[in-house]
């Protein structure tokens, strides 16, 4: 089995590392978090120029036709830099769903623009009554003539405020938890009847509650066959899990390494903390757990890349293990930094919060452990 990256993949990782090293220090990130948009459009253009936005878009639509391993490499590096730009929403979820289920017309219209950074999209799939189940859809879409009329509320929609288009899951038939009868609709962000309540998230990103009150979209806004979106959602959410797991792997790499660096220079009781055996062992455990999480991230990515029947199980196992490991690595990074680990001035706190939200996104540890053991 060849697990080595290709030259192109190594170059991809290096180019993101260079970008983060020169453009993404903690102060810059804090300023972006505090800005109106919450990220940098200039960075977004850079991402487009360097081919990162088009990486997973098929070549027929102006992209580079990369696979899930390429996406994993990108997100691992984004995780190291705590990148704020809406790559998950716009590329993995939105572009991913269009690529899987959209018509040729949808793809021609959106994919090249997404890859060029001229347009962003996001996915509204969470509902408050059962947030961990994407098949729970109480939002309705009623067909009247050549239009659909949407009503309902979507929760914690990542990057909804900045998205040009929101892809909304809505029910065209069946009961709220029925996997059949869910459809996806392209809803422009400025649609009449669409109300957003925007808020910052604890990890420095942006999300919204999205209320749909008699929002009318043309029949051509339907993505995929009517009532058949559950499988599409499942696949893009699986890809989303892979992407944020890779991001967590990157963030954990920074955390364990920074903790090693800190304990080497922090002197208490006349010795660097790193000389105390309890600290040495804890750092070693962080390193071990990090590596196990990284291994499973790689394996699950390869399996889904091959469309293996074993992929779903591995993705549940991965999301569980990423949550468990991020807590272990994150909590110990804070603990070993002592009071300093508790301050917003150090990067540690920001990695810790991002890992916390990765655990909460797409269902936390218990949800996936339960699905894994079923």
């Amino acid at each position: 089995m060849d697990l080595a990256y290709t030259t192109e993949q190594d170059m991809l990782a290096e180019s993101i590392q260079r970008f983060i090293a020169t453009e993404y220090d903690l102060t810059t990130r804090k300023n972006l978090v505090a800005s109106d948009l919450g990220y940098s459009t200039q960075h977004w253009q850079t991402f487009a120029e360097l081919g990162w936005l088009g990486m997973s878009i098929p070549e027929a639509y102006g992209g580079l036709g990369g696979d899930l391993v390429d996406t994993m490499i990108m997100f691992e590096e984004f995780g190291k830099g705590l990148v704020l730009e809406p790559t998950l929403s716009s590329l993995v979820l939105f572009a991913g769903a269009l690529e899987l289920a959209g018509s040729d017309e949808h793809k021609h219209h959106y994919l090249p623009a997404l890859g060029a950074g001229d347009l962003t999209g996001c996915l509204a799939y969470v509902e408050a009554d059962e947030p961990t189940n994407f098949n729970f859809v109480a939002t309705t879409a009623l067909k009247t003539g050549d239009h659909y009329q949407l009503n309902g509320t979507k929760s914690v929609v990542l990057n909804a405020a900045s998205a040009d288009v929101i892809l909304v899951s809505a029910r065209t038939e069946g009961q709220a938890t029925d996997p059949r009868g869910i459809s996806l609709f392209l809803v422009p962000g400025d649609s009449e009847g669409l109300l957003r309540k925007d808020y910052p998230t604890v990890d420095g990103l942006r999300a919204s509650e999205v209320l749909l009150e008699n929002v009318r979209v043309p029949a051509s806004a339907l993505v995929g066959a009517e009532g058949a979106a559950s499988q599409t959602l499942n696949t893009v959410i699986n890809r989303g899990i892979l992407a944020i797991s890779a991001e967590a792997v990157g963030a954990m790499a920074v955390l364990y390494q920074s903790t090693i660096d800190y304990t080497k220079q922090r002197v208490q009781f006349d010795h660097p903390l790193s000389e105390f055996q309890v600290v040495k062992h804890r750092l070693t455990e962080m390193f071990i757990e990090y590596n196990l999480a990284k291994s499973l991230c790689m394996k699950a990515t390869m399996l889904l890349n091959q469309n293996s029947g074993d992929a779903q199980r591995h993705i549940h196992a991965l999301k569980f293990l990423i949550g468990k490991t991020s807590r272990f690595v994150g909590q110990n990074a804070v603990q070993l930094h002592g009071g300093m680990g508790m301050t917003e001035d150090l990067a540690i706190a920001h990695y810790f919060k991002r890992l916390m939200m990765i655990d909460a996104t797409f269902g936390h540890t218990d949800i996936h452990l339960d699905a894994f053991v079923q």
Partner: protein
Amino acid sequence: MWTQRGDWFKALADQGGWDIPKWPKDFGGPNFTPTQRYIFDLEMGKQPTPPQLPFGVGMLAPILMNYGTKAQQDRFLPGIRDGSVNWCQGYSEPGAGSDLANLKTKAELSADGSHYLVNGQKIWTTLAQIAHWIFCLTRTSSDGAKQEGITFLLIPMDDPGVEVRPIITLGGSHSVNEVYFTDVKVPVENRVGEEGKGWTYAKGLLAHERSGLAGIQNSVMGLEKAKRNAQKVRVGAGTLLDLSSFKNKVGVLEAELLALEFTEMRTLARVAAGGDPGPESAILKLKGTEIQQRITELNLEAAGVFAAPWGAEAFGPEFAHGATQSYLGGRATTIYGGASEVQKDVIAKNVLGLS
């Protein structure tokens, strides 16, 4: 019921010193036996009663009672008791965290012996921003062991040489600060006890502070709340509490809390019999704070993706509000008052005899 904190503490005082349950009778306390005090704490812990800021009543007052002059007691204890004077604790420094005795803030006695000149920096000073006074460990001598040459001083925060700079912590809150001292003149009558004996005075108090950090009754109530929260989270045909992995975590915590409660009872029994708190008391802070953190994790899990919204306005189900802050803020409990790793060293050395 009680519209004002002040009303509540006044009502407690009217019961005969219930506002200062740990103070001895001579200083107006209720003269509780250890058992009565335990019951008092237990019942207070079961209700959402307003907590008293610990720095004056719980930390400084016992030191003044034991080591302060009559004049110092008369001057400071009334303001501590009625809450009109806020205190903060100036112990930790950038280079003196777990290794507290490594502190460097310098206090030099003037040639005429009338005052100390204080220069240096404290860090992690809780609520310094609202404090009128700070009680400080300062270094008056660098001779001998680190623990010697430490002097306990009382310093008014409105001195022009005292500067407070906020530290914003994980969770966005401002409760801790840096406190800088530049040529602050402290009259010798603000020294508590003898010069160079401050470490001894503070050490006894640290053990006391630590045993008070276990928060067992809060954890008992917190766990019940976490279970109720989890029952409100729909997962498939059931709730989050029906998932075996979540339920098991709750069960493990419940069992450990039962054990911890009785560990506290064993400590109490020793004290009630006239003995020292004993080795079990060292377990309380360690295990108690770890349990507190695990309960905040359960609430975070119940909040799920609604842990994300951040800012003044609350979104998502009501039970999810505050779960993120508690989880983030709770990370400090195994760091402050002696990090868990250091607590284990203390137990290993003092209890198990492993040097």
